[in-house]
């Protein structure tokens, strides 16, 4: 009997079981992948408050994720937190999304995050509005004081000194809180303190290109002959510091500004009134004359109108070039402000001024001169004006500054003028003039006769009774003057009153001295008074 060889079954039913298992497994993976939220990494300076498996991520105080792990970066510069988020927030992870750790904080901006003392720190998320999706973020060390989309203006202030102003302090407009200082950093390039500030709407409409910002922290004391003036802001600004803004009454209304505009932070409102202009240009003027009496701050004038000031004498720069003692003219750095000439306080006006100076020097004889401003004190000033007799000149440079050519004044200038006069005198046709003069002399006899008549009239006038009475009136006037002056003598009432006023002023200044001494020893004594020490009691001693 022959065995029958038949075709075996190609697919065994037993394989259905692993296939179904595989399908179920794949569907589970797909389901898990589809329902699982995104995993992101956050970078922070330290892991203070972060705990793997415990620290939550919140959005508007709703839990949206959990920190899975915290690790230190290989270069030890920061820590990286791996965070698992809910799938609903996947669409919110954009390039400008912000994360920061909410901890208990006590600062100038106030007290925040008290609840985290018991519940533990958490990570707060602020959704972005960008267009690029992102999985790695650098967390903020400080929570943002103002939401990114808040209506208002973001500006930058620069100050030479940090003073009492710091992040979180208020920005005030006429004493009303109108914004805040968000960050405070030191710009190493500009060597200035930089403040990023936010002005809330609708106060941002009050800011324009003429707006000035000033530090109004603490208490300002000013003693003068008119008395003692004390200026202080609100209690917040006295204790914590603050910045005010407003318009300078001496400046025209400026143009509207946009976010990102930079302003200078003045140390006081008084400084704004003293230096209201914010745009200008530096120039150098060199003199071979004596600079005695020319000090930093001395005015630079154009026909008596002050439009700049002397910044400093560049003797150090001249020494660096090895030119001191060689008879070289001494360079003086000046700062010119076009705003003072009412041509605008903006970069365009500065350019216009530079063009006028360049054109003036090249073809109109514009020169700088050193002039005496005060005969009594010997203070000098720099005058810039047109001298048509000067030849055309080119603008030179000293260091990075453009040099305005100068001419000498005073005796040196006088010598030049005398020399020019003599040259002109030599060129005169003297012989012709002398012959002409002979004719004139013939006519002079008539003139002499007229002069004699005038003298006779004068004699008759002096013999007049009124003229004779003049000496007596003069004597009376002198007597009156003597009486008047006696009223100003030290023993007079006026002198005594003046002496008393000066003594009162001295006593006031002495009291102020005591106050300043007390404040320097204990600055907070203005708020928290020192327990007064009672007066010593005079004791009568028995004989």
């Amino acid at each position, binding site marked *: 009997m022959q065995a029958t060889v038949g075709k075996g079954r190609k697919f065994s039913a037993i394989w259905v079981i692993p296939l179904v298992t595989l399908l179920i497994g794949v569907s589970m993976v797909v389901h898990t992948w589809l329902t699982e939220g995104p995993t992101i990494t956050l970078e922070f300076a330290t892991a203070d408050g972060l705990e793997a498996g415990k620290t939550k991520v919140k959005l508007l105080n709703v839990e949206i994720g959990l920190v899975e792990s915290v690790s230190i970066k290989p270069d030890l510069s920061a820590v990286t937190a791996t965070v698992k988020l809910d799938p609903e927030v996947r669409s919110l992870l954009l390039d400008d999304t912000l994360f920061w750790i909410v901890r208990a904080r006590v600062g100038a901006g106030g007290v925040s995050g008290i609840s985290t003392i018991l519940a533990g720190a958490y990570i707060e998320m602020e959704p972005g509005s960008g267009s690029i999706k992102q999985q790695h973020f650098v967390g903020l060390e400080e929570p943002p004081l103002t939401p990114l989309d808040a209506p208002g203006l973001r500006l930058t202030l620069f100050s030479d000194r940090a003073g009492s102003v710091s992040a979180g302090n208020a920005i005030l407009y006429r004493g009303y809180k109108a914004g805040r200082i968000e960050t405070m950093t030191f710009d190493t390039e500009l060597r200035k303190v930089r403040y990023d500030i936010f002005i809330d709407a609708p106060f941002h409409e009050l800011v324009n290109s003429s707006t000035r910002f000033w530090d109004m922290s603490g208490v300002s004391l000013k003693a003068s002959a008119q008395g003692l003036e004390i200026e202080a802001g609100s209690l917040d600004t006295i204790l914590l510091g603050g910045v005010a803004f407003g318009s300078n009454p001496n400046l025209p209304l400026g143009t509207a500004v946009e976010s990102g505009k930079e302003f200078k932070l003045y140390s006081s409102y008084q400084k704004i009134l003293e230096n209201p202009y914010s745009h200008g240009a530096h120039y150098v003027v060199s003199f071979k004359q004596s600079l005695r009496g020319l000090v930093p701050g001395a005015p630079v004038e154009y026909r008596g109108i002050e439009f700049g000031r002397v910044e400093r004498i560049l003797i150090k720069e001249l020494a660096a070039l090895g030119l001191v003692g060689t008879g070289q003219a001494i360079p003086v750095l000046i700062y010119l402000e076009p705003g003072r000439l009412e041509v605008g306080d903006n970069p365009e006006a500065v350019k216009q001024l530079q063009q006028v100076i360049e054109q003036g020097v090249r073809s109109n004889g514009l020169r700088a001169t050193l002039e005496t401003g005060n005969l009594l004190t010997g203070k000098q000033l720099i005058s810039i004006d047109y001298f048509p007799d000067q030849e055309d000149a080119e603008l030179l440079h000293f260091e990075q500054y453009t040099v305005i050519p100068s001419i000498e004044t005073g005796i040196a200038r006088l010598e030049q003028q005398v020399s020019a006069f003599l040259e002109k005198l030599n060129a005169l046709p003297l012989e012709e003039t002398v012959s002409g003069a002979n004719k004139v002399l013939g006519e002079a006899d008539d003139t002499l006769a007229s002069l004699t008549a005038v003298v006779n009239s004068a004699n008759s006038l002096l013999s007049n009774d009124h003229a004779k009475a003049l000496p007596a009136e003069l004597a009376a006037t002198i007597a009156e003057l003597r009486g008047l002056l006696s009223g100003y003598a030290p023993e007079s009432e006026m002198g005594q009153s003046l002496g008393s006023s000066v003594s009162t002023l001295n006593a006031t200044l002495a009291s102020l001295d005591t106050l300043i001494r007390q404040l320097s020893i204990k600055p907070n004594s203005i708020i*928290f008074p020192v327990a007064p020490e009672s007066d010593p009691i005079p004791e*009568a001693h028995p004989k």
Partner: protein
Amino acid sequence: MKSLLLLATLFVAGCTSSVPTLNKYLLRSDAAPQFAGEPATAVVGLGTLTVASYIDGLGLVLETDEGKIREARDNQWAEPLRESLRSYLAQEIAAQAKQVIRARSSGEIDGQRRIDIRIDIRIDELHGTASGEARLVAYWTVFDTTERKITVESGLVESERLSADGYPALVAAEKVLLRRLAAAIAAKL
């Protein structure tokens, strides 16, 4: 909220400290005022009256130790000494000399009499001492404005024991010393 907290703190701090009483002493002469006297041959008046700067404040000054002084904060003259001394001494000198003494010269011109005899006074010391006394050091000159020369030049260094403890006794002792100064000046007129 911050401001309220700060205000509350300040309020509490303010409540915990008591404010000492300020005592003010008026320097006035007890002598009868000489509003009108016998027509004097010469008009006499006070000229310059200066006080040492350490007693130019309002607080009464007490020497607590050798060379150390304390200006009282809670015991003060009612008006600066340079003001009150003028009227006090003028009245005291007038009472002693039995003639009107002008407390101030007013720079008279023709038609009015000007001061003929001018008294200039300088108070160098006027304070309480640690040994229970009041001390006065003064220097004065009499100047003839017609002859334009100093006719008398003198000084006074005196002390007076305090009758009791406290500032009222110190003020009383200082008044006694000033009265002696007025008597010394009046004797030389």
